[in-house]
């Protein structure tokens, strides 16, 4: 892989690293004793997981009526959270797949935990389609399986598309992540001291030997997966956006949704990667692997996708005006000045205004600023989904059936609960698996490059 370092640009890896030292530094995170802060963090997130279980238990005993949903607003926090989580997942796939195809070596130090983030985000997201059902215990009716009723899912429904899209997304992401892990698992297998560790990592490594033939097929399969995952990145959030785009509500029924949902997804995803990467590198002293360069690149991606999202907002308003459809026009007016105007302007501030600071190098190179910005954007993207869902639903065609919506304590509890679930999984991951891809880090070392460049 070629990589020309322009003057003034921080490098993508600290100086003086060799294959050996990289290996030691990353794998020791996993193999050495657990730091105290880990227990604290993991414990706290476990408490939130308990909150999640409590909320869900109450939900199942009483029914979705404990949430704020009503007629006309049949979806609220539940689907908002679903879309938000799914969106976050996208950065992982993008980084590991698209940047791989684009031969962006700087991805190599962030793709691993970005992919993990994807998995865990999807895990959180996929709880909502089940939880939001009136009768969650029959969720499996959405899947095609031979049954004594002789009746099947209704394949024209975007919700069935979701089932396929999300499950495919989860499966492919899992495979991609695991395939990426195999060589590193082998490394851990070979370096672990304890017998159990050896065996566990050994089983997972499946006997990886790093032979040329392995690498040969491996690389090919990895690129293939990357290619497929690239399709997924584009497709999954498009399909999610169909949930709205294929409805006929003003504010939902619009062709701009797929692209701008995808952009939004990547936007929020990178924000989340930053939110996670910044503390992570500090905690494990990985500044040499996740360098200022990485943060800056991600900042730039955020700026770009942020602008695309902004374009989406403008197009929405333009189309409403251009279509000259009274319902569409009213929808825009209602969004901007209606009962949910605050949420709308808040999201504009978070998603459109705040990223503009990223034009400034000073901001891009300030870790603290980036951290704050990333969180602001995450909030903004959540609000975006909330506004799209609630403002479109609460005032549609017949003024007689207009209503209002607000979440309840149980909506909040469930959401916070999933955040806890996400963090708990993240903590487990960084503790037991290499948070940075070791073998891919090796490939960007001088010694590796020399071969590839000098090679026949």
């Amino acid at each position, binding site marked *: 892989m070629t990589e020309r370092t322009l003057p003034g640009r921080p490098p993508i890896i600290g100086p003086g690293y060799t294959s050996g030292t990289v290996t030691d530094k990353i794998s020791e995170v996993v193999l050495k004793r657990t730091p105290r802060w880990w227990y604290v963090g993991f414990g706290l997130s476990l408490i939130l997981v308990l909150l999640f279980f409590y909320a869900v238990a109450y939900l199942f005993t009483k029914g979705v009526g404990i949430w704020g949903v009503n007629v006309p607003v049949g979806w609220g926090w539940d689907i908002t959270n679903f879309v938000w989580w799914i969106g976050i997942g996208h950065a992982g796939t993008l980084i590991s797949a698209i940047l791989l195809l684009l031969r962006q070596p700087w991805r190599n130090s962030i793709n691993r935990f970005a992919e993990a983030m994807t998995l865990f985000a999807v895990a959180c997201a996929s709880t909502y389609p089940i939880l939001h059902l009136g009768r969650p215990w029959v969720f499996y009716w959405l899947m095609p399986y031979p049954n004594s009723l002789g009746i099947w899912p209704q394949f024209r429904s975007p919700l069935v*598309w979701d089932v396929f899209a999300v499950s495919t997304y989860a499966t492919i992401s899992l495979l991609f992540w695991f395939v990426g892990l195999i060589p590193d698992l082998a490394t851990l297998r070979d370096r672990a001291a304890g017998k159990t560790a050896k065996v566990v990592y050994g089983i997972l490594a499946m006997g990886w030997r790093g032979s040329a033939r392995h690498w040969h097929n491996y690389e090919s399969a990895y690129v293939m997966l990357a290619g497929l995952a690239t399709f997924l990145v584009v497709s999954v959030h498009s399909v999610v956006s169909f949930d709205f785009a294929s409805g006929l509500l003003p504010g939902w029924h619009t062709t701009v949704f797929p692209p701008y949902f995808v952009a939004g997804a990547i936007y929020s995803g990178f924000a989340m990667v930053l939110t996670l990467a910044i503390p992570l590198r500090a905690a494990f002293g990985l500044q040499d692997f996740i360098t200022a360069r990485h943060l800056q690149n991600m900042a730039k991606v955020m700026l770009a996708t942020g602008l695309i999202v902004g374009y989406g907002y403008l197009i929405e308003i333009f189309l409403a005006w251009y279509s000259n459809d009274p319902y569409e026009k009213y929808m825009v007016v209602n969004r901007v000045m209606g009962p949910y105007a605050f949420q709308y302007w808040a999201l504009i501030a978070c998603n459109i205004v705040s990223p503009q600071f990223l034009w400034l190098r000073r901001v891009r190179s300030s870790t603290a600023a980036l951290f704050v910005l990333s969180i602001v954007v995450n909030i903004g993207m959540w609000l975006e989904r909330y506004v799209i869902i609630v403002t479109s639903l609460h005032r549609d065609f017949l003024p007689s059936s207009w209503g209002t919506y607000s979440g309840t304590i149980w909506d909040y509890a469930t959401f916070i609960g999933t955040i806890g679930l996400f963090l708990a999984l993240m903590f487990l991951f960084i503790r037991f698996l290499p948070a940075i891809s070791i073998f891919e880090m090796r490939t960007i070392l001088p010694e590796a490059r020399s071969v590839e460049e000098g090679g026949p």
Partner: protein
Amino acid sequence: MRGGPRLWGLMAEFRTPQELVDAAARARAEGYRRMDAYSPFPMEALSEALDLPASKVPRLVLVGGTLGALAGFALQYWVSVIAYPLDVGGKPYNSWPAFIPVVFECTILCAGLFAVLGMLALNGLPMPYHPVFNAPRFALASRDRYFLCIEARDRKFDRQATRRFLEGLRPSEVAEVAA
């Protein structure tokens, strides 16, 4: 496999990837075929040196994708047209445009599964036990050492001659690998 002493092969250890690539090339030039090189990261140069045939994974992926697409559409068509045709929102039973997303997802899913399982199969994984692990310093293959192993099965293999040839490549060490 021929009889003789229970030997898997001879393994030479190198410090740098370049040495390994050269060694592999030399060995091949020497006429050795049944050999394998081990490195902590992928090296295209090495594959070329060993003159490995193009990987079959892409073809598998194509097959998987095709099967997935067909299965996906077949399922939806059968369900909505044959098994239980229902008038849904006035749309025809075979409203194929609405079936596209699921077809797409099935395509990706099967293709992905074929890619991974195919890769494992082609690499003969899982294989937790393998003779090369007997090599004393082989653990470093997953860190920063580079190994070339000429296997006893090779027609041209000869305990002494091959050892001499390998030492001629100036490795840091040559070791026998028990089968």
